[in-house]
């Protein structure tokens, strides 16, 4: 190819494109940067006019996020020992006392347990089913795959009505197991669909060679196919995890206490006399950051995941 190509954009057009795209990127990231920044502001700083871009960072939001507090009387304050650590100091400076740890830690752990539990189950079942769909003739295969996909067309609230009744009958309301099963049921369609695409790409010849070498079908699956599909399985797992992590509608309707996850909880964080935005932002930061990191790790397979494998590349 010659040094100059008709399809290569000129330096000027590249420059203009770069400027416009960078401009969009900056604008689109402002709300996210604002979440992170607000988490490190004090209450008054967070609601100042004009909005403060430069401010004295404070851990007040994070302290508020993890504790429940009450306003202390002057006598109580006077009787209190001098603060031992920064947490006590922040709380005392505002004339408050910590009554107990907040529910945020437990809600966050619920998200972790339900997220990982349902991801593990979806991947375990999904890999088996995807292998069968990819390699064997399963009766009604095409119908099954379309059916699996169409389950995603139902609004979550519509599904929630019978699930709500079913869980109440079975005693699964507001339990980890119930939510894990539910998210697995929702995720498995995505998992099977994506994993089938990844397994289709592994040449059959590998397994056939293993079968000739005396492996059983199951050994061939375990020792030949699984290692080959590892990247595909990992990225599918991250998609399942992100879905379960972000899910709100089911969690909001079907959990209230023991098994409540973070998304329905974070919006309910209130301080004394109104919304405690630094605490909300701190919770949101802790909750969103893992997904931001996963997104960056996942960038190569992103397109495939979000389109159910319809667009590969």
């Amino acid at each position: 190819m010659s040094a100059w190509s008709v399809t290569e954009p000129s330096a000027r057009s590249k420059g203009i494109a770069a400027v416009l795209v960078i401009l969009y990127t900056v604008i689109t990231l402002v709300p996210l940067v604002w979440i992170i920044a607000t988490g490190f502001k004090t209450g008054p700083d967070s609601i100042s006019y004009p909005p403060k871009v430069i401010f004295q960072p404070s851990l007040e939001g994070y302290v508020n996020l993890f504790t429940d507090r009450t306003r202390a009387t002057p006598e109580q304050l006077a009787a209190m020992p001098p603060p031992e650590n920064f947490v006590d100091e922040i709380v005392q400076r505002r004339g408050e006392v910590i009554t107990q740890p907040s529910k945020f830690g437990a809600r966050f752990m619920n998200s972790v347990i339900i997220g990982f539990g349902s991801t593990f189950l979806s991947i375990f079942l999904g890999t088996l089913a995807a292998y069968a769909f990819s390699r064997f003739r399963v009766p009604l295969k095409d119908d099954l795959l379309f059916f699996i996909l169409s389950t995603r067309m139902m609004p979550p609230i519509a599904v929630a009505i019978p699930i709500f009744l079913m869980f109440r009958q079975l005693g699964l309301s507001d339990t980890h197991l119930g939510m894990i099963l539910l998210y697995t049921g929702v995720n498995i369609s995505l998992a099977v669909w994506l994993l089938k695409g990844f397994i289709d790409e592994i040449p059959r010849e590998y397994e056939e060679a293993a079968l000739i070498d005396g492996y059983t079908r199951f050994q061939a699956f375990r020792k030949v196919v699984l290692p080959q599909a590892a990247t595909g399985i990992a990225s599918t797992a991250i998609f399942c995890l992100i879905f379960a992590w972000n899910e709100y509608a089911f969690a909001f309707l079907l959990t209230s206490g023991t098994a409540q996850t973070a998304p329905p909880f974070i919006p309910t964080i209130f301080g004394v006399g109104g919304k405690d935005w630094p605490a909300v932002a701190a919770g949101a930061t802790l909750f969103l950051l893992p997904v931001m990191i996963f997104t960056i790790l996942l960038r190569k397979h992103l397109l495939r995941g979000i389109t159910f494998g319809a667009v590969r590349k």
Partner: protein
Amino acid sequence: MPDTPIDRLARATPSSLARRARGLSDRAIAWVFVTPTILLLLAINIFPLIWTVRLSFTNFAANKPNAEVKWVGLRNYQRILTDPDIWQTMQATAHFLFWTLLLQVVLGFALAWLINRKFRGNDLMTTLIVIPMMLSPAVVGNFWTFLYEPQIGLFNYAVEFFAGIPASSFSMLGSVALAPWAIVIVDTWMWTPFVMLICLAGLRSIPDYIYEAAEVDRASKWRQFWTMTVPMVLPFLMLAVLFRGIENFKMFDLVVQLTGGGPGSTTLLTSIELKREAFEKWRTGYSSAYAIILFVTVFGLASIYVKALNKVKER
């Protein structure tokens, strides 16, 4: 056909023995592998769907499980289809769908087209742009209510700074005129990257030689864009619209956090209305019928759309 000793041995072995020797037969493996998934889908997807259909013909109320359940036939359906409030939520949903799809297609395609200029660092920009769509809509939506605060919100301040409209003079979420646009803005912010990614895959699938041939034929850039680029990206773009359309028809988490359907019922999307009927008014039978109507609508529209999409692909 190869004829090694192993092949000869394999042929000589009775098939039942061979199967035992090799562990489970392929058929058995297929069933063992697929059955758990099918059972789970039956339990979590099919069974509830059938139950919803059943409930939709009754006057059942989930908060009164012991009350007598009456069979009411098609009355629920009849009431929904003649209820003017329902049609108002349909209108709100249509407004939301139309504008989010339009803005996301225009912005998403433009961004993809720019990124496809392959300037240095375009991969990094793509990754950064994509981040918002991966985040929890409920948590992000909740924080946007802060950005939309009339006096202290960053959004209102930005409008004051760039357009000179005082930040405290308007409330994006509180005003009947602005709220439908407030939800469109946040959804577009969140989901434009989705359309962009798919368009980018489309643009990158166009082979260079087509443009080289067009240059040889002296087709203008404008003409190349409309007769080559756009038609070849169209199937991808239509796919993106299909996904976004289905998702936004079901939209719940983002908007319920932003406006909760208000002010009045200006942003009362179908899913939010459904939640009110089912879990606040506890009209389980009625809302089941509503759910079925929604499902049939999405399913029907999606099927027609997929047919059109396949036609475009074949061209």
